[in-house]
């Protein structure tokens, strides 16, 4: 197995406030890592550092065995909590801009719009999309480069049951293709269904890190671990 992400004592401070405090974990190819924690536990800050949006204060971080993300961005697909698209552009135009940025063949845009079932949106602009449609566009955007690593920050947040099922099936589908996935969620049952490994954060610190097998071996489930740690 090859290591896709590895962090050692990764720390992010804002003045005296420590948002992420010495987090160490590694994510191997094909694994699905669920990052769990209450609001303010450091999940989004951790994701932001991995994506190069925020600079680490100390510690080590390697993605695809590189310290910075130069040249490997196209190996990563990102689904953030809030889709950052142009409000007055259609799904097609928004995806075309992403494809031009990532240097992807524009034929892939139509292919992905069909794949996430947004063809019926036609010329409707992004600001008129439902939350579920926005999420699907975000997914199409993340998959443009056929990435090896997919990072999802709260992918099921605010979705209806159909939307949640869509995301769950997507994760299974990506896993079957051998993709590596890192995701965060508030929904323990959802995360337990799809993840192979778990990282629990509290006040920026790791309070649990292990695999589904390790949890089963202790005759526990995610809910019981969560309730003892929080």
């Amino acid at each position, binding site marked *: 197995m090859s290591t896709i992400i590895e962090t050692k004592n990764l720390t992010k401070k804002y003045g005296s406030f420590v948002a992420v405090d010495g987090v160490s974990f590694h994510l191997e190819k094909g694994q699905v890592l669920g990052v769990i924690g209450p609001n303010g536990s450091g999940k989004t800050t951790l994701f932001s550092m991995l*994506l190069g949006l925020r600079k680490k204060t100390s510690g080590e971080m390697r993605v695809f065995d590189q310290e910075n993300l130069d040249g490997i961005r196209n190996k990563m697909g990102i689904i953030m909590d809030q889709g950052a698209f142009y409000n007055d552009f259609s799904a097609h135009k928004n995806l075309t801009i992403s494809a031009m940025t990532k240097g992807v063949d524009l034929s892939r845009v139509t292919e992905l719009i069909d794949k996430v079932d947004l063809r019926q949106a036609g010329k409707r602009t992004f600001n008129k999309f439902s939350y579920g449609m926005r999420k699907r566009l975000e997914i199409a955007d993340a998959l443009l480069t056929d990435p090896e690593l997919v990072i999802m920050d709260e992918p099921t947040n605010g979705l209806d049951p159909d939307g949640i099922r869509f995301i769950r099936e997507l994760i299974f589908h990506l896993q079957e293709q051998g993709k590596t996935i890192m995701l965060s969620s508030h929904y323990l049952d959802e995360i337990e269904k799809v993840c192979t490994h778990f990282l629990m954060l509290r006040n920026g610190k790791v309070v649990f890190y292990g695999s589904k097998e390790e949890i089963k071996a202790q005759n526990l489930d995610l809910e019981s671990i969560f309730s003892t740690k929080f």
Partner: protein
Amino acid sequence: MSTLQLLKIEWYKLQRLEVYIILALYFLLITAISFFSTVFQIDAGRSAEAVFTPDFFLQVSASIGTLLIVIMVMLTISRERTNQSNRKRLINGYTRDDIYTAQFIQVKLVWGLFLVTWLLTAFCSALFVGLNPISFFGDFTTGQFLGVVFGFLAKGILAAFWITLMGKVILGLVLYFAWSVLETILDLIAKVSATASGNSNNISNFLPTTVIDNFMTNTPFISDWAYFTFGMTMLILLFVPYMKIQKTDY
């Protein structure tokens, strides 16, 4: 990312309804003002050549063009912030330098569109008032042409400066106009006090936006200090947004 790649993306993004509306508005407004002003004065016994001069056209087209170019640049740049697209751009592989370059390209594309529209407007306005457009262009001095070319660019850069600092179009516009008003008041006070004391101090050479306006309308500079002010203003207007983009957490 390569500059060509950034240019293609920004050009693609610029193809939106509001851009077409603003450019069409500019064309229609200037053409209508030029036509009716000239026709009324011809009725009063003056010739079209005497009324519709490059100076007259510059006065009309520069003031409205400036306002519209500022609005268009602010709308274009603020969109990257309100849609959190700068965050997305970083995720997709832009560096912060790329974001700055893309912003500068946006300004230059808007500027280019306005120059083309300005030329078209001048051509059609001359035609509509019954002049030969080619000879009308021939009446422009090099200084007048350069004033339009660099004046529009300077106004675009000024708009980019305010919107990068303020984020919202309305705040950017308020500060843009507040600054101009402040300069006008300072200039007036200086002129009044100079007249009262019998000095010939002219601070307009040291007022950034006044210098740009004078440059656009080809008002002769009183001293070479105006060129210094223009250069320093441009440096600050380009450098401050660069630093702001480098330091912002997206």
